[in-house]
């Protein structure tokens, strides 16, 4: 009897299956989506924004490590996550545990930052629908602007999982933020961001060429003013000394490392204008298992405030968190214990 019901359900699933094109241009047939798993850096974050964490049936090991640098992990309650069975170690490049996937039989596997060859291998081994989302150019996407890819990914995931209204309202909020931030008038100063997390904690020379919070405000990373490079880069300290930014923004993730570096090379760092004039400003953590989109906007507001715009960063941060985590924003922000905004 059980087998008949299962067969009926499977048949019904195929009847209602619809074809979607994912962010890597693959066509995938997807039926129901009540049981989900997320693979790769950032996939679960986008799912959590849409409230899909309640449909999780398995989780990567890495996602169980809570950190204040990762708002979505703090948001998902520890008890709920702890009970979930593991589907693999997690982390870029690593293959999931395919036996676990076959045992759990989720309706859909959502990935980001997973190589297409790996996606095809997982699909052929498990026969479970698998879709790829994208965080943009820095992370294997094709679009120039990272945020465009994120918005498209949110809408695609919303459509597939019947949470389109939620995705649309979040994308509308993101677009509204982009518009407001672009309209701010700021002091013209040479700016740089250092300590951006990249495969772990990094120092002052770890930066983003087209750092999205800068891009949102129409600013350019002063070390890369003349280039058309993209994404994350490690630079020579010499290049930083030559560009000599007036303000250096320091990612919270790399803050301690940068302080250690400063203790080691005091004289060298003190020759930088930003160090001389104490224009080192800490901003929230940008990357942690891919980009924290909510923090990206808070950082933009922090930078705007650092460049003389009359803005209430704390109020804006609460608004942003409320939009990304409806009804839990303010509580989550206080839980994260960030330095005063």
């Amino acid at each position, binding site marked *: 009897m059980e087998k008949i019901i299962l067969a009926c359900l499977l048949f019904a699933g195929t009847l209602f299956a619809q074809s979607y094109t994912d962010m890597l241009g693959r066509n995938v047939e997807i039926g129901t989506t009540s049981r989900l798993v997320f693979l790769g850096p950032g996939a679960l974050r986008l799912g959590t924004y849409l409230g899909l964490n309640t449909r999780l049936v398995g989780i990567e*090991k890495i996602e169980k490590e809570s950190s204040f640098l990762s708002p979505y992990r703090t948001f998902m309650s520890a008890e709920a996550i702890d009970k979930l069975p593991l589907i693999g170690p997690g982390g870029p*490049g690593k293959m999931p545990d395919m036996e676990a996937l076959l045992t759990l039989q989720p309706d859909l596997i959502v990935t980001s930052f997973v190589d297409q060859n790996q996606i095809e291998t997982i699909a052929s081994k498990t026969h479970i629908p698998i879709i790829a989302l994208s965080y943009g150019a820095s992370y294997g996407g094709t679009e120039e602007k990272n945020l465009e890819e994120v918005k498209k990914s949110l809408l695609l995931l919303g459509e597939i999982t019947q949470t389109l209204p939620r995705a649309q309202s979040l994308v509308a909020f993101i677009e509204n933020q982009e518009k407001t931030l672009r309209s701010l008038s700021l002091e013209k100063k040479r700016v740089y961001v250092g300590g951006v997390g990249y495969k772990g904690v990094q120092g002052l020379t770890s930066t983003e060429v087209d750092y999205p919070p800068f891009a949102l405000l129409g600013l350019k990373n002063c070390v890369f003013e003349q280039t058309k490079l993209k994404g994350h880069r490690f630079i020579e300290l010499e290049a930083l000394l030559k560009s000599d930014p007036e303000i250096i923004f320091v990612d919270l993730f790399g803050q301690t490392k940068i302080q250690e570096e400063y203790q080691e090379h005091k004289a060298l760092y003190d020759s930088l204008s930003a160090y001389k004039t104490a224009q080192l400003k800490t901003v929230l953590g940008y990357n942690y298992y891919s980009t924290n989109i909510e923090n990206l906007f808070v950082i933009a507001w922090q930078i705007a405030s650092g460049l003389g715009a009359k803005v209430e960063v704390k109020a804006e941060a609460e608004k942003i968190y409320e939009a990304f985590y409806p009804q839990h924003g303010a509580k989550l922000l206080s839980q994260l214990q960030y330095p005063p905004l």
Partner: protein
Amino acid sequence: MSLHLLYRKRTLKRFGLFAFLSLTIILLLWLNMISGTGGVVVRDTLKLIGLEPSSGSFSMILFSIRLPRALAGLLVGMLLGLSGAAMQGVLRNPLASPFTLGISQAAGFGAAFAIIALSASDISTHPLWLKLNIALFAFGASIVCALLILWISHFVGMIPHTLILAGVGLGSLFHAGTMFLQYFTSDINAAATLFWTFGDLSKANAMTLGAMVLFLIPSLLYLWASHWKFDALAFGDENAFNKGVEVKRFRIGVILFSTLCTAIAVAFFGIIGFIGLIAPHAVRLVLGSAHGALIPLSALCGGALLLGADLAARMLLHPVTLPVGILTSFIGAPLLLYLLVSQGRRR
């Protein structure tokens, strides 16, 4: 002891090792079939032999994951063991292996090139091309490496140590090429390249298994049939020539066959080090250097070793799975050092 008795003892020893390796392989295959995410579940044996009804997901796990993986372990191990035995025989050097000849590094470079450079250009979107481009490039690069070694040796004399030195040189060159590509590529491609080099058997499917069998059988037959040539070579090139071996041609033939064996295994599953080095040594320790037994038994020993290593890689840190390439290097590197030291002492 009479010659007849000695001969009988040797045959018995060979048969004994053959039986031991075959039984080990059967045991390991069985263990591989019943171990997975849930650990080693002995009860699953009943499901395996049909005494207990198995659920759909169990048979899917068995046929889609465990069986291809175990067969891949066996075949890759056999290919690498065979290739190692042949290379050590033809180059008269106990340190010769696909790894020390740079063939694995070349495959790594080929894969990195396919992952990094090809993903940036849209040569073709045909699904078969997308599926096979990495394997094709890895395979191609290995063959190019072997041909380069032979070409260089052509100028400086086809003697074993020049072949090995050329291999070491080319190996570092290809490794440098991989690092160069990795440094400039995006995070996702760098990670994919890195994980490719770790060597992972979970990618196995019917096509890769079939391709390996197609390479294994002719290579095994050719190398086994040439066992007397290897034996003759063991006493020097001149001795082999006097016994009717065309040394240069034979050397080229063996290097090409061994490269094909390594290249096909590495192309599909990434770099799995040291099996090619350990397997022939293990057999030699028991049976001595007669290639009539060494060649086929090295293949069997390689298969058993890799099957065992893969099982250990999955079960040692359970539920965390190690890529098998890391584990084989852990076992193989100390053995390589031991060989170096013991050889030094003998001198």
